C-alpha cells in the first residue's frame, strides 16, 4: 500500500519535472505575468437592464517561444462574460472597442494596462474587493487555456 503510494508519488514527480522542463524549452508557451484587477462594486439597482457593472483585468503576456501566439478569449468566475477590449484616444475622447485577438509575437511581451488593452469583465457577479483575488481563464490560440489569478488592487 505504502509502496504503491510511493510509486504514484514518484510518477507524479517525474510528470511534474518533465512538464517543467518542457515549459522552459524552446517551444515554451505564452505565460501571463503580474495579473491584477481594479477594485469595483457589483451594481445592483432598480433597473436590471443597466447591468451589474463591469471590471477590468490587466496583465503582461509574455511569449518566450519561437512561434507567435494570440489571446483570443477569456472567462471569469466573477462576471457573466469577459472580453478583450482596447481603450484608445480619438479627437480628444477616450474610446473603447472590443478586440477579437491580441497578438503576442514570438519573443515579445504585450502589456495590458489602464487606458490600453484590458480584459473587460461584463456584468459582475460580485464585488471586486481590494486585497482579494479574481480567477480567470485566458484562451490562447496555441497555448490553449491558461488559468490566471489576478490580485485585486
Amino acid at each position, binding site marked *: 500500500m505504502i509502496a504503491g503510494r510511493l510509486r504514484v508519488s514518484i510518477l507524479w514527480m517525474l510528470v511534474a519535472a518533465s512538464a517543467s522542463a518542457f515549459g522552459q524549452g524552446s517551444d515554451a508557451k505564452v505565460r501571463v505575468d503580474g495579473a491584477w484587477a481594479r*477594485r469595483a462594486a457589483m451594481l445592483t439597482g432598480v433597473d436590471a*437592464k*443597466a447591468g451589474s*457593472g463591469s471590471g477590468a483585468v490587466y496583465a503582461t503576456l509574455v511569449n518566450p517561444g519561437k512561434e507567435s501566439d494570440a489571446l483570443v478569449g477569456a472567462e471569469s468566475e466573477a462576471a457573466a462574460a469577459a472580453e478583450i477590449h482596447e*481603450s484608445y484616444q480619438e479627437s480628444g*475622447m477616450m474610446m*473603447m472597442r472590443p478586440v477579437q485577438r491580441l497578438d503576442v509575437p514570438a519573443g515579445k511581451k504585450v502589456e495590458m494596462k489602464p487606458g490600453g488593452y484590458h480584459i473587460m469583465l461584463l456584468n459582475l457577479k460580485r464585488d471586486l474587493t481590494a486585497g482579494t483575488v479574481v480567477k480567470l481563464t485566458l484562451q490562447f490560440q496555441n497555448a490553449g487555456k491558461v488559468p490566471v489569478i489576478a490580485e485585486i488592487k
Partner: protein
Amino acid sequence: MNRGLLAFLPLLVLALTAGAAETPDLRTGVFKPPRPAPDFSLRGSDDSELKLSRYRGKVVALGFGYASCPDVCPATLFFLAQAKEKLGAAGKDFQVIYVTVDPERDTPERLRKFLAAYDPTFVGATGAPGQLADVRKAYGIQISTQVPSEGNPSVYYVHHSSFVYLIDRGGNLRAMMPFGVSVDDIAHDVKALLSP
C-alpha cells in the same frame, strides 16, 4: 468639437506656453489666468441637490464618466482616490465630483455604489439629459454613444472626454488634467492648491 471646448483652447495654449515659466507650481496642466468654474446644480448621488458653488473652500476635482465604464473611468477614480490617500489629513478638503454621461443607467444609487468602491467621500451627479448636456457644454466635454453589438442593444458605451478639472478653494478652474497623469502629480497639484 463644440464651442465650449473651443473657448478653452486659447487658455490652454496660453497656459502651456506662458504658464510653464511663470506658474511652475502645478504639473497637470494650468489655466492662466484662472477663470471661474461654471456653476451647475444637479442631483447628487446622495439624492440631494448638488450645487458646485457649495464646495467653495475645498479643492474640487471635477470629472465626467459613467458607472458601466470598465477601464478609463475607474482608472481615473482610482488615481484620484490614491492621490487623496497620499494627502493624508489634508485630503479632507479635497472633494471629487463625478458627473455622469449616462443618466439613463446611472441612478443616484448606482453612482453612489460605483464611487464608493474607490472612496466613500466621492460624490456623483446626475440629472435630466438636457441639464447634463448644458454642464458638458460649459466644460467642453464631448460624448458619443456606441452600441457595439446589434444583437444586444442594452450593452453600450458612452465615449467621452476623459480630462479632469481641478478647481481651487475660490471656485476657479486651475488645471485640466489629461488621462494618465501620475498619482504623484495629482497629489502634488492638489496639495499646492490646498496650501493657503
